[in-house]
């Protein structure tokens, strides 16, 4: 019974993911003046799902290797180690968020 519930949950999550990816594909299609078939969206959703499974297990392994049970940004950056551009993109986003948070706290204190 638990397995059936888990499968149902996964299916619903996949459906939600399919919807979101569909919106991204629609937006990109408009920008590129292209069209995408529903099969393309479904296949991309499947691909993203499997990639997320890999990401989740990798992040878990990295954090466990570091002696933690909480995944941090260091683990995510380790995930992107193979591609310098991707690494820089994610690091840049993390740094910007931290800078914004620090500035926000400073304004709050004033």
């Amino acid at each position, binding site marked *: 019974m638990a397995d059936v519930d888990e499968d149902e949950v996964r299916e*619903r*999550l996949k459906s*939600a*993911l399919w919807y*979101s*990816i569909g*919106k*991204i*594909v*629609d937006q*990109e*299609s408009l920008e*590129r003046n*292209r069209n*995408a*078939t529903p*099969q*393309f969206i*479904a*296949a*991309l959703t*499947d*691909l*993203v*799902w499997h*990639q*997320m*499974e*890999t*990401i*989740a*297990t990798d*992040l878990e392994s990295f*954090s466990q290797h570091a002696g933690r*049970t*909480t*995944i*941090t*940004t260091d*683990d*995510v*950056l380790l*995930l*992107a180690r*193979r*591609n310098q*551009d*991707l690494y820089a*993109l*994610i690091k840049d986003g*993390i740094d910007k*968020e931290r800078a*914004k948070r*620090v*500035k926000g*706290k*400073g*304004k709050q*204190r*004033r």
Partner: protein
Amino acid sequence: MPPKATGPGRGGRVAASNNRTATSNKPTTNASRSTTAPRGRGDASTTTGGASRKRTIDDYAHGGRTNTVDEEEEEEEEPQQDEEELEAVEEEEEEEEEDDDREKIPPELLTRILHACFEREGTRITREADRAVGRYVDVFVREAIARAAVERGRGFLEVCFASLFFPFPVCVGGLLGSGLRLGRPGLDVVGSAC
């Protein structure tokens, strides 16, 4: 002069504050740095199992098993901002507002999927890492579409059942780094003509 609101950041912080109010504030156990006192910006403390308010998958909710933690920065004295820095901040905010206009996978959905895929029950993820993963997946999706569009040239972006014996999946690093096809057994997501 009233403090300037950080527009793009508010969305994430509002979501964080909603999560904080929706769930019971329990002291963190595993996070090295985490909030214990509620703050005005709404940085949420750890959310553990047993949320007081239950959401559904349809709401892209965190649900009962979500464990997200804030990486709280050390408290520092805020240096005075020059006008140039203020202008830089404004430019960054404008860029981020443009980014916010772009469609994204909801962060709550991504968190939920991650937690569904974790093998260990007690695994948690900080909010910063959660957002970083969201950015990662966003890049993944957009690059997949871009590669398919470039390879296709014209016409529809389609699925090509070309290679039934394609080796099992390429990791993202290889995908994004070396231009390999997006593939898994029995399925080739490529924009090329079949």
